């Protein structure tokens, strides 16, 4: 009897506690799942904290779900279980998959519905264009964006008697041939290494030279697109790199960045192509030589090189939440795009400040005079209005296509295939994947 009464009492207590919570105006929780870990995760947490303290209507809760793959998979599982977060960060190669998922609330619409009149013209266009649909509407909010640049060893250059490179004017690939030859001749074991070969040597090479990567405006205008990377220009580029391997003017250090970076650090290579996010890594790792940053080389016939394209990730807003919550999401995205946050983000991580105003703000306070490395990528990416070809890539199963390209390139590097054979085969294999993808969404 006594037990029973106790039980009743405690149940009543629980009820009171819960309903009290309901009555008080509790801030609305906005969940953001992201792939930013360690130092970058801390920076995200700081930005979230700033937002939460700036108002009392919403509370953003940021959760790291692992790396990019893991975060996307967490999102997939959550959407399937109808427990999706409000905002999901997804990497750039997953753009097509997210866009067609049917699970997203396009960002341009969200901002409009929530009453924000965003001046999209003020954003870095090559970044926006990567996440726009074919009508030019923004589908996801760019968050962390980078682009590849070229690092070089100043000491080795001086030793070989090579003039240092300009930070704004790109050298030509013919210059590159001479420079690497001089480097090798001066006793450096190797000339050039590159990280992320598909991204830097094929995707960005194509964009900079305005060469279609795929038909249908690189896939923006239809799922029935086909790869076109077996064109003469790209094949010649790969053939040239391959021919440089004979005397070490170019050599292969692996698909990702670890191997190539190690070669650059060990001074086995005088030049190293990698994302601008490499700046922070090199600053930390290089102790015994001076290095600098230059734009990616351009072919001599390309008088007006196009913008390079981005890598990184964007924030997708997911369907299935209430209007009130979406107002909070919009407020948070708007907050992240403020000059203060973008400036902070750029200075801390090296990723691009997303708006021209924030870029100018940083410039005005002399940030780029103190950190000239950081501006090379921005200038290279914004040097021209993106064309339909240089604005980005929109391919289904893009991750697998990148794998295919990586595999085929490796077969060129280890003498198993000629560049033409390898790229023909890459196109053939990728097209099979594209058709599979197309069939899935029919």
């Amino acid at each position, binding site marked *: 009897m006594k037990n029973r009464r106790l039980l009743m009492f405690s149940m009543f207590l629980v009820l009171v506690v819960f309903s009290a919570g309901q009555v008080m105006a509790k801030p609305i929780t906005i969940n953001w799942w992201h792939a930013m870990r360690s130092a970058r995760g801390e920076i995200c947490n700081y930005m979230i904290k700033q937002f939460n303290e700036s108002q009392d209507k919403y509370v953003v809760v940021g959760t790291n779900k692992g790396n990019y*793959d893991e975060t996307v998979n967490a999102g997939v599982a959550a959407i399937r279980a109808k427990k999706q977060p409000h905002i999901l960060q997804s990497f750039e190669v997953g753009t097509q998959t997210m866009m067609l998922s049917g699970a997203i609330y396009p960002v341009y619409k969200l901002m409009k519905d929530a009453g924000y009149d965003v001046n999209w013209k003020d954003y870095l266009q090559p970044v926006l264009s990567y996440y726009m649909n074919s009508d030019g509407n923004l589908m996801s909010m760019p968050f962390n964006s980078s682009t590849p640049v070229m690092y070089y060893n100043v000491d080795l250059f001086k030793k070989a008697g090579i003039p240092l490179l300009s930070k704004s004017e790109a050298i030509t690939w013919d210059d590159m041939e001479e420079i690497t030859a001089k480097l090798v001749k001066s006793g450096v074991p190797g000339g050039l290494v590159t990280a992320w070969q598909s991204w830097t040597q094929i995707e960005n090479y194509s964009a900079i030279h305005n060469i279609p990567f795929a038909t249908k405006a690189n896939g923006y205008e239809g799922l029935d697109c086909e790869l076109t990377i077996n064109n003469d220009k790209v094949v010649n580029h790969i053939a040239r790199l391959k021919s440089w391997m004979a005397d070490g003017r170019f050599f*292969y250090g692996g698909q990702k960045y670890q*191997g190539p970076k190690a070669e650059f650090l060990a001074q086995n290579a005088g030049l190293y192509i990698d994302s601008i996010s490499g700046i922070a890594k090199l600053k930390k790792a290089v102790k015994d030589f001076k290095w600098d940053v230059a734009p990616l080389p351009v072919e001599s016939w390309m008088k007006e090189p196009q913008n390079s394209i981005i890598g990184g990730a964007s924030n997708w807003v997911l369907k299935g939440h209430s209007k009130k919550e979406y107002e909070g999401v919009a407020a948070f995205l708007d907050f992240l795009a403020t000059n203060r946050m973008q400036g902070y983000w750029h200075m801390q991580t090296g990723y691009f400040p997303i708006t021209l105003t924030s870029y100018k703000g940083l410039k005005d306070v002399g940030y780029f005079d103190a950190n000239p490395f950081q501006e090379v990528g921005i200038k290279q990416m914004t040097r021209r209005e993106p064309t339909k070809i240089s604005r980005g890539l929109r391919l289904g199963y893009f*991750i697998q296509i990148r794998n295919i390209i990586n595999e085929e390139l490796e077969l060129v590097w280890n003498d198993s295939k000629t560049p033409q054979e390898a790229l023909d085969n890459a196109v053939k294999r990728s097209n099979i994947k594209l058709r599979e993808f197309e069939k*899935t969404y029919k």
Partner: protein
Amino acid sequence: MIKRSIFKSRLLPYLLIFPQILVTVAFFYWPAAQGLMQSLMLSDPFGMHNTFVWFDNFIALFKDPLYLRSVVTTLLFSAATAFVSISLGLFIATMANRALRVKALIRTLLIWPYAVAPAISGILWLFLLHPSYGVVALAIKRWFGVDWNPVLRAGDALTMVVMASAWKEISYNFVFFMAGMQSIPKSLIEAAAMDGASPFRRFWSITMPLLTPTLFFVTVMNIIYAFFETFGVIHTVTQGGPGGSTNILVYKVYQDGFIGLNLGSSAAQSIVLMSLIILITVLQFKYVERKVQYTG
């Protein structure tokens, strides 16, 4: 003299095995059935578009030369890993069985690597053998002029992952061989020694035949290990490269399914993988086991 418990109630036995059945159904049959369903469908990752395509995924797989190459790679890789780890495990066990003084210490030390997870083992070997920062790789390049480059050359890469995978498994095999050897009556070996049989002869004619049950068991376990658990090694060391030369089946399932989000194909691959391992195990039990001599 077998002990038997007779249940009065007919329901009780079922009730007692029910938890086990529940676990098996929930964690094995249910996912396997889901995988089978998925392998017959083309679907987007979010499950919003699903098309039933019968065996299209399987047909596409077997038309894909790369998949067939992955099958060959897997067989080669498993055979090499099993061979290396079994022969070395056996060799070390034989040696350790003879060592007299610090037997216990040596044994403990030899068992240690088994406690290392495959992924960690991969990282350790990578630090030794990576052409850009591997200690051993740089040393052999400098002193012996060996042009070792697993980042570029398929053969080197395969050698590296086989070493990393086999290394860990040697300890496992060692433990079983050691136990197997200790159960062999000393008198047999002593008798043979008195008859003038050489150590090699004694090993080959007495120890080996009596070890066959262990050898059989260890072979099955090693092949299953090489098929599935080496994922961590591949993932940390080569990610299937260069040019897909170390892309074993289980890694391809992960690449296509988890990273590429191509669920239909990935599910079809899992089904093929499952069938393959069932087939291998059945064959082993059917044919290899006949030759095994169990001590009576």
